[in-house]
Structure formats: structure tokens, C-alpha cells
């Protein structure tokens, strides 16, 4: 992204939580910021890269991004690192020892929890890391707080020489609200000073650091007790008082404007005395936290009488429509079956609209082909191509974690049951996911002589998160030229035999089909690399669109099985075959205004009914894939 002039200080602007954190990172004088893209965290680093005076990078995975940030913080510079919740699972190896060494320059790690699962494989609670790694956790409730807590995070980090976790959720990262921004204060790093007893974590040194970590815990808890980020708002309705953190605080204030509330912004370590102070004001205390009962459990262990997950869900957001009935029930009040206005709040039944692959997506050809090859078990991975599990392809059987397709494919191979003995094992992984955590799995597969056909879908982008650059496409975060990985050479270096490596154009269905069918029969590791770009990035070039000659369409529906959203059914019918079997017919048209001429649907069309569009007047193509 190109650098732009930052918004002047003292402006009040509409910013998402991600944009607010980015602004604060710049204002704090951060020198190094690193991340791997992941919803809902991605925009933080994207926006940071538009600010001057700092270095930003897309790292190959979250662990590397944290290590880059740790190095910068050891060098005395301020550093920033962000990731989605599952990213910290990858990065935690570094975190758990970083907590012993601490930092010199401030280090804030923003972790974005996808509460509500808008685009994730699980809903874990990152506040656990604060307890596990003995580091403070700050929880903003809106963009202004995300901004302010990021700035404060650097002060806190440097004062206690501790990394600070900024725990965000989707409802913070992606909500836009007003933020008053300030001036940038440059920060000069002290430079790296050799201090092996602190920075070389061998057992003898680490053992001496552990008591310091526990001492720091006590100091941080005392600080949380007096922190301005933790405050009690008194209220007239003392039947229930609330302890709330993160966006749940806003939902509590919205739902119970007259109730006393303890707002925890500095939520780990938990300020127990402050919680007791609230408890003394009210009849009973309800802890409102997304997702796990962390504060609640700790308070109960302290003998503070609170309730929480007994009446609130352990999953999803605690929005007003969840909170209000739960508290009404607690108070023994009647809960209207319908909504706040006595009307039904049940949604009208409408078909589901799951995310689809884009018009002309290069993955369409891959999944169409996989759906045509019999007897496969397909180990999938994380990215746009996870959508291959859906209709019409149903050609992806597993999805667990980044890079898991590799190791799991080997496990599916080695752990075959009697019923799978003739099954062919295929693994499907994208370019960026492969570089993130797939390479090691492939190495393991080769080393241990697995029988797996790997489809490496190189679309030159981190597609699902918006087409970010990565080492596979030869561009860095600034769009500047960067060394580009040669996937064929890389997999050869990992030990895949040269004759088992194929580069295929995924729009050439017969070649793709033959290559997959041949390779699954070979009882060793093969890698088939597809090499066409994501349709949403600049490397993609549109071709002349197609249309259907209605008279020629026989209604066979083969083109629909490709799964392209530009193909629409015009009418349906039935035909009785010579065998007496009745088959459904679906006659189609192509929405030529969005078709970009990839030609995938043309190939399975037996009657040659799909031809280049011959417009009567010039048409305008829409900018992006799925538009209307």
C-alpha cells in the first residue's frame, strides 16, 4: 500500500478498531510491525503499512511475525505484532519464553478473537494467554479505547519490561466509531545490549527469570487495582451489578443503563479488590465476558460471590438480545417470547447464501475436476479453497488448522482402515498456507515415504483475507518487488522427485484431470502446482466473456457443476432417457456482464452451446467478482 498523509492530530474521525490501533502504533513511534493476515485482524497491518516512519512486513506466519517483533523490542525499538486468535497458537512458542526475558522497547501484541465465528475454524478466548504467559491483557470496548489502550500498552510494556496483549474481538476490529487522534511522538531505540543472562534462555538463565515473572504478576495486579482502565459506574438499580470487559461492556450499558457496572479494561491480572468493591454495592454480581468464564472462575476461587456462565452462553457474542432475557429470568421477571416490541423476531425462511468462489476463480477448475475423480479422500486446508467442501463440488473432506492438510493426509494414508485400502489420498493447500505451515508437513510426508498427491493451488495471493502479498508472488507489503519463491524448486528441495512435480494451468480441465488421475495411482508423494492468479488481484487479466445460445442448450447441467456464480438457470424440465430413467434438466444463461471468459464452463458443454458474447452495444464489466 502506498503511504498517505496521516490525518492531523485532534481530528475526530470514524475508524474501525483495526484502523484505530494502526493510528496508535504510528503515534507511539513504533519502528517495526509484523503480522500474517487473518480475519478479523488483517487491516491493522494493512493500515500500518500506509503510515510513514516505520517498517511493516507480512511475515510467513504468526510465529515469525512475533519473533521479528521480539528482535526489534530487544533492540530497544518499539514493536507491534498482530494476529487472529488462532495465530497465537502458532506464535505461542515464542511468547511463553518471551515472558521470561521481557522486552526493552515496548511490545504490544494485538490478538483478534473471532467471537461469533464470522470467518474462523474455532472460537477460542485469547485472554487465556495472559494467564498462561503471565502478561497483562487490555480489553478495549470500542475504537477510541482500542486507540488509547494501544498507546497505554507501550507505556505499560516499557515500565514493566513485559509484552502486553491487546485482546480485541470481531466486534472491536471491524466496528467503526469516532476516535480523536493525537500527535506522533518519535521513539528512539536504545540499541541491542548484550545481556546473556536475560536474552539467552538456557535452563540456568531461565530458572533465574521465573521468580521475576511471578514478582511482576504481583506488581501488575496491584496496578490493575488502581488503573483508570478499571472503574465502577454507580447505578440506581442495585438488584444486579455487572463486571464486564470488551464489547460486552457496551452491551451491558445498552441493556441496563441504571445498573452499577465495573468496567475492566485492564482485565488481567484481575483486580480482585475492585471486584469486591462492586459486589458490596449490589444484591448480586453477574460477570459478562466473551467467551470463556475466566474472570468469573478466578473471582469464584477468591470467594467473591458472582454468577456468569450459569445464565449466559459460553459461545458467541453477549449482545443485548442475549443479555436482557437472561437477566430478566435471573430476577424472576417474565420474558416476552417475542422481541422488545412484542412482535415476533423470528426470521422469515429464506434460502441460505453461503460464501461462494468468485466468477472465474482458478480453484473452480480444481474442485470441478476433484469432484469428477472417484475414490478420493481429500485433506483440505484453510483459505478460499476450503469452500470446495460446499456445493456443487463437495470435494474437501477435512479442515483443521493452517497447513494441516499435509500431516493429516499422511496420517490418513498411514492410518488407513480396511475400508480405505483402495482410497487415494489427496491434499489441497494454497500457496500462502503452504509457506505458512505446510512446508514442514510436506517434508515429513516425503521423509516418511507417504502415498499422497498434493495439490498446491498457487494463486499468488492470500485470497480469503483480501489478496495480500506473500513470498510466493514476488511483492512485499508495500507492493515493491521482492524475491519470489519457486514452488517447483522448493518442493524438489524438500525431496519430491522431479518426475512427480507438475505445473498445470487449472483452466485446462483435460490436462488437470489426466494429471490428477495419473498421479493418484503412483504410490508416492506427487505435487501438482496450479499456476493461475486470484481473480481479485492485479495479476489477473479478464478475457472476452461468454454467453449461452439458448437453442443449443440441452439442459444437461454439466456447466452448473463447475460452480461458477455467473451461470444461472433460466428454466427447468424433465427428460425420460431411453433406459426409462427420468432426469432433471436445467437450461442456463451466463451473466455476461460479470463473466471474465475463463472458459471453464465451455469445456464440459457437450452441445457447444457456450460461445463468446457478441454484444449488441458495448457493455461495462463490473470491477470485482461477485458484483451485481
Amino acid at each position: 500500500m502506498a503511504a498517505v498523509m496521516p490525518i492531523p492530530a485532534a481530528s475526530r474521525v470514524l475508524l474501525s478498531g483495526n484502523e484505530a490501533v494502526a493510528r496508535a502504533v504510528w503515534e507511539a513511534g513504533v519502528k517495526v510491525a509484523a503480522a500474517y493476515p487473518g480475519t478479523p485482524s488483517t487491516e491493522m497491518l494493512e493500515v500500518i503499512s500506509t503510515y510513514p516512519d516505520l517498517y511493516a512486513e507480512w511475515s510467513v506466519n504468526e510465529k515469525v511475525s512475533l519473533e521479528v517483533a521480539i528482535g526489534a523490542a530487544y533492540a530497544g525499538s518499539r514493536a507491534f505484532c498482530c494476529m487472529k486468535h488462532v495465530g497465537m497458537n502458532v506464535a505461542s512458542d515464542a511468547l511463553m519464553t518471551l515472558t521470561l526475558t521481557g522486552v526493552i522497547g515496548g511490545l504490544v501484541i494485538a490478538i483478534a478473537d473471532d467471537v461469533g465465528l464470522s470467518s474462523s475454524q474455532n472460537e477460542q478466548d485469547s485472554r487465556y494467554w495472559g494467564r498462561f504467559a503471565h502478561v497483562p491483557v487490555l480489553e478495549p470496548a470500542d475504537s477510541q479505547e482500542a486507540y488509547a489502550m494501544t498507546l497505554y500498552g507501550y507505556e505499560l510494556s516499557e515500565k514493566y519490561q513485559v509484552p502486553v496483549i491487546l485482546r480485541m474481538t470481531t466486534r472491536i476490529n471491524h466496528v467503526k466509531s469516532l476516535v480523536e487522534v493525537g500527535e506522533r511522538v518519535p521513539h528512539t531505540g536504545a540499541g541491542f545490549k548484550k545481556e546473556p543472562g536475560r536474552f539467552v534462555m538456557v535452563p540456568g538463565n531461565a530458572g533465574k527469570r521465573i521468580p521475576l515473572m511471578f514478582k511482576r504478576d504481583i506488581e501488575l495486579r496491584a496496578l490493575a487495582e488502581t488503573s483508570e482502565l478499571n472503574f465502577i459506574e454507580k447505578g440506581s438499580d442495585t438488584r444486579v451489578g455487572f463486571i464486564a470487559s470488551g464489547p460486552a461492556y457496551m452491551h451491558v450499558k445498552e441493556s441496563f443503563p441504571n445498573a452499577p457496572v465495573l468496567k475492566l479494561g485492564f482485565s488481567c491480572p484481575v483486580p480482585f479488590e475492585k471486584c469486591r468493591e462492586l459486589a458490596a454495592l449490589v444484591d448480586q454480581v453477574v460477570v459478562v465476558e466473551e467467551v470463556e468464564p475466566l474472570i468469573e472462575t478466578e473471582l469464584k476461587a477468591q470467594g467473591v460471590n458472582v454468577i456468569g456462565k450459569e445464565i449466559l452462553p459460553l459461545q458467541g457474542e453477549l449482545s443485548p438480545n442475549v443479555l436482557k432475557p437472561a437477566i430478566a429470568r435471573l430476577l424472576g421477571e417474565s420474558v416476552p417470547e417475542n422481541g422488545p416490541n412484542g412482535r415476533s423476531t423470528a426470521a422469515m425462511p429464506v434460502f441460505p447464501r453461503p460464501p461462494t468462489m468468485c466468477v472465474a476463480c482458478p480453484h473452480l477448475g480444481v474442485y470441478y475436476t476433484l469432484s469428477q475423480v472417484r475414490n478420493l479422500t481429500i485433506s483440505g486446508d484453510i483459505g478460499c479453497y476450503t469452500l470446495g467442501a460446499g456445493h456443487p463440488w463437495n470435494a474437501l473432506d477435512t479442515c483443521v488448522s493452517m497447513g494441516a492438510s499435509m500431516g493429516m493426509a499422511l496420517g490418513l494414508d498411514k492410518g488407513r482402515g480396511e475400508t480405505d485400502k483402495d482410497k487415494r489420498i489427496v491434499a489441497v493447500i494454497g500457496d500462502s498456507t503452504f509457506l505458512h505451515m505446510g512446508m514442514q508437513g510436506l517434508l515429513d510426508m516425503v521423509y516418511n515415504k507417504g502415498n499422497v498427491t498434493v495439490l498446491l493451488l498457487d494463486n499468488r495471493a492470500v485470497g480469503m483475507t483480501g489478496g495480500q502479498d506473500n513470498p510466493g508472488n514476488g511483492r512485499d507489503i508495500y507492493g515493491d518487488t521482492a524475491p519470489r519463491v519457486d514452488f517447483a524448486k522448493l518442493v524438489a528441495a524438500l525431496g519430491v522427485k522431479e518426475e512427480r512435480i507438475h505445473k498445470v494451468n487449472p483452466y485446462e480441465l483435460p490436462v488437470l484431470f489426466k494429471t490428477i488421475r495419473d498421479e493418484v495411482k503412483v504410490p508416492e508423494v506427487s505435487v501438482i502446482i496450479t499456476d493461475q492468479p486470484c481473480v481479485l488481484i492485479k495479476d489477473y487479466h479478464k478475457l472476452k466473456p461468454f454467453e449461452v445460445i439458448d437453442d443449443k442448450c440441452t439442459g444437461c447441467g454439466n456447466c452448473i457443476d463447475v460452480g461458477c456464480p455467473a451461470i444461472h438457470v433460466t428454466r427447468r424440465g424433465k427428460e425420460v432417457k431411453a433406459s426409462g430413467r427420468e432426469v432433471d434438466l436445467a437450461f442456463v444463461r451466463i451473466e455476461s456482464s460479470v463473466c471474465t471468459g475463463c472458459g471453464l464452463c465451455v469445456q464440459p458443454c457437450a452441445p457447444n452451446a457456450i460461445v463468446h458474447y457478441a454484444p449488441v452495444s458495448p457493455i461495462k464489466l463490473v470491477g470485482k467478482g461477485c458484483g451485481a
Partner: protein
Amino acid sequence: MSENTNILVVGIGGQGVMTATEILAEAAIAMGHDAKKTEVAGMAQRGGVVSSHLRFGQRVLSPQITPGTADVLLGFESAEAMRWQHMLRPGGITLMNTARLVPPVVELGLFDYPEDPLAEIRKTGNKVVAFDATSIALELGDIRLGNTVMLGAIADHLPFPAETLLDCVLKRFQRKGEKLVELNRRAFEAGRAAVGEAEAALA
């Protein structure tokens, strides 16, 4: 907080729902309101359902509109306008594009697209105004103007002057030249007129 205005903008990924809501938020802020905008999007870039919430007023706490409390529902697509009816408050209004965007799961014969979403919405008793924003945009020469047509459509259903919203829309196109500004002005007015006419016909 009942004094807040709640606007729900719905459609599918790629239609510009989120941008439209952001412009509405900018207009509310220009009027001195506090505002929060949120959506459930995530994977919506891939043609999924998008619902974008805008709340504004003196002070906004929760960014989410509670079901049954939306003042206006701006629907970029017919079935999507139907999907979110339960979000409207009694007396709330739906302003909807009559465009039908049929997803692959319907084309595959796995689900049916509702025969007449407009009629289904009318059956609920909710007030609804329908217009063909896509055709209006195409008549003006570019389907991408549909977003501005939709903003024009809501312009007379806001607690502030339509001109404030128009200014915010046009500001977006200033850097791209006078021609595009003019085109968007016409798209905005066309959307506004379409809703005005449709409402007059209902009265």
C-alpha cells in the same frame, strides 16, 4: 437507547453494502451525531450475506441493532430484504431494490428462491417501498452507480436533510473528476425520485 436511529443495510458481498453504510455514517457524523457502524461480513466478499448496522444519535453504546428495533431497512437485493424483516420495529420501513441475485445453491436446485419477496414482505404488514435500482443504474450507463441510487433511495427517510447525505456521497468522487460527481448526483436524485414515486403510488 431508544433515541438512537437504527439503519440496517443488507445485500450480498460485492454489492457495496458496507461502503453505503459507511457513507451514511459519515453523514450522521457531519450532523454532529455519535455513530457506530458494524456488520457481519467476514467471508461475505465471496458472495455471502452481508448485513451492515448503523446506529446514530447523541451517544451510541452497543453497535448492534437489536432485532425488532430497526427504523429503516435498506435492501440491495430482494431476498435479502426479506431475510431481515424481523429486524424492523413496528412502523419501520423497508426500501428495497427489486433485483434478484440467485446464488449457486438455488441454481443447483437445492433451495428455492422466493417467488415474490415483495409480496412476502407485504404479508407481514411491514411498510415496504420497492424500486429497480439496478435498472436505474444501467440506464445511467453503469451498474456501479447502483450503490449511489440506493443511497438516494434512503435520503428522505433519515432524520437529517438529504443534501447532507448527497454531500458525503459526492465527496467520495471528487478526486475522480467532475464527470463522475455529476453522474453520481444524477444517480442519487434518481434513487430519491424512484422512492418518492413508489411511495406516492402506495398512498
